């Protein structure tokens, strides 16, 4: 199929960007969206033009590096799918596809479609971990976990940190990312000792960079891992509870 691509080009963080239109010919239906961009970049290279910068790594939907707005949808038209796993059979010959980077104050454009998502790292540093002594691997299943909690924690842990939730949110809130990263630990026994400090630290770090949730649900719809906004509610609950728990902890 032949396609017209309207792609955001921006030389650097401080230069203004604009859309440029390119034609790509004979794109295979089996190509992934990123392979289609590779094809365009080869053409651009051959013509001596600057190829389009875009983030990617695993190309199998697990690293969270890829992610762009495709025709106004984060990660494109197919729900529950990262850009790298979106296939060109979702488009038709002759389509014009608009590709734009994630937009949020916290995610400045570095170049073309690449944005700086390091505020996510700050949130993880604030509490997205558990503190344990390393050493020999502990026995598996030595700590019992209720099945429901394990399933729920697994659903939250599916977050790949791509930033689609922020990109989709009218308020540029990172509540879905933060909630997923918080709740996959807070739901498990291993996460309990730091649960209440984690809740406060992660929420307050998040709020240094991102907007606040108005429960639109756009993030859930955009999430390539279909993570539920219920986790946001549970993060809110933990944040409120933490105000009391952190006071009472010393005497527990």
């Amino acid at each position: 199929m032949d396609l017209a691509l309207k792609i955001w080009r921006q030389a650097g963080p401080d230069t203004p960007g604009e859309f440029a239109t390119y034609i790509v010919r004979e794109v295979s239906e089996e190509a992934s969206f990123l392979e289609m961009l590779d094809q365009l970049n080869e053409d651009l290279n051959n013509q001596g033009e600057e190829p389009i910068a875009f983030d990617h790594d695993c190309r199998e939907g697990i690293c969270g590096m890829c992610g762009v707005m495709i025709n106004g949808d984060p990660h494109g038209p197919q729900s529950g799918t990262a850009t790298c796993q979106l296939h060109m059979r979702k488009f038709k010959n002759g389509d014009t596809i608009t590709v734009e980077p994630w937009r949020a104050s916290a995610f400045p454009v570095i170049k073309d479609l690449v944005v700086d998502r390091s505020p996510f790292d700050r949130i993880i540093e604030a509490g997205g971990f558990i503190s344990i002594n390393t050493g020999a691997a502990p026995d598996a299943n030595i700590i019992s976990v209720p099945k429901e909690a394990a399933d729920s924690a697994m659903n939250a842990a599916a977050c790949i940190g791509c930033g689609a939730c922020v990109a989709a949110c009218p308020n540029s809130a990172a509540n879905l990312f933060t909630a997923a990263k918080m709740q996959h630990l807070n739901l498990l026994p291993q996460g309990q000792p730091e649960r209440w400090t984690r809740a406060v630290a992660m929420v307050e770090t998040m709020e240094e960079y991102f907007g606040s949730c108005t429960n639109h649900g756009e993030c859930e719809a955009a999430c390539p891992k279909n993570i539920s906004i219920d986790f946001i509610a549970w993060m809110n609950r933990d944040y409120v509870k933490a105000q009391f728990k952190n006071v009472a902890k010393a005497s527990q």
Partner: protein
Amino acid sequence: MTATKRSPVQTRSGWREWLGGFFTSSVGLKWIMAITGIGLLGYIAAHLFGNLKIFTGTDAAGNYYIDLYSEALWHLGGHLFPEGFLLTVLRVGLAAAFILHIWAAAVLTKRNRVARGSTRYRASRNWAASNYASRTMRFGGVIILLFLLYHLADLTFGWANPEFHHGDVFDNMIASLSRWPVAVLYMVANVALAFHIYHGTWSLFRSLGTANPRYDPFSRGFATVFAAAILVGNLSIPIAILAGWV
């Protein structure tokens, strides 16, 4: 925004710090919006319950029930309190809830503007999950506020109603709402209110953190039924007066 990362030991340093951290955080402000929202929803329901007495006519002595209801509000608590005392307490509480609700909305809106910033999407984008109600909370809120000010001037204080007589609730309502531009204004404002509470009544469970997959259909259904009931009830009054049914 607060950049402090508090350890539990620092958190114990006193209620001031506790108050500061929570009530300046966006999650905390949403919590305030939800709590005050519940208060406002309760008020809206009680207010409608009272107003529907316009349809119940007069008692044997020829007093309109809605006038008696208004008088009863002044005597809330019977002889336990001076006349108007509990009503004043309720009014002050209601005003406080309104002010906190709007204050939190303003602070959060400002933060969200900063977070979205100048970095809007240049191409059009699709909405996948949000709805008209959720996207017009701020705009609708401002409409409600402006209407509220008019409404107080019209039927509480009577400044906007030339034929206003304190205590004659029935006559005041008829005098005001039989002017069709006023009736239309009331209807438009109540549609805006219904959209606001349709999203708000669902959203508050999430802001408070009580949402759970098992209850979600319930909270959706509750929000829909509640908003619809308030809408139908509130619209029935200007419509009935305009049509001359009361």
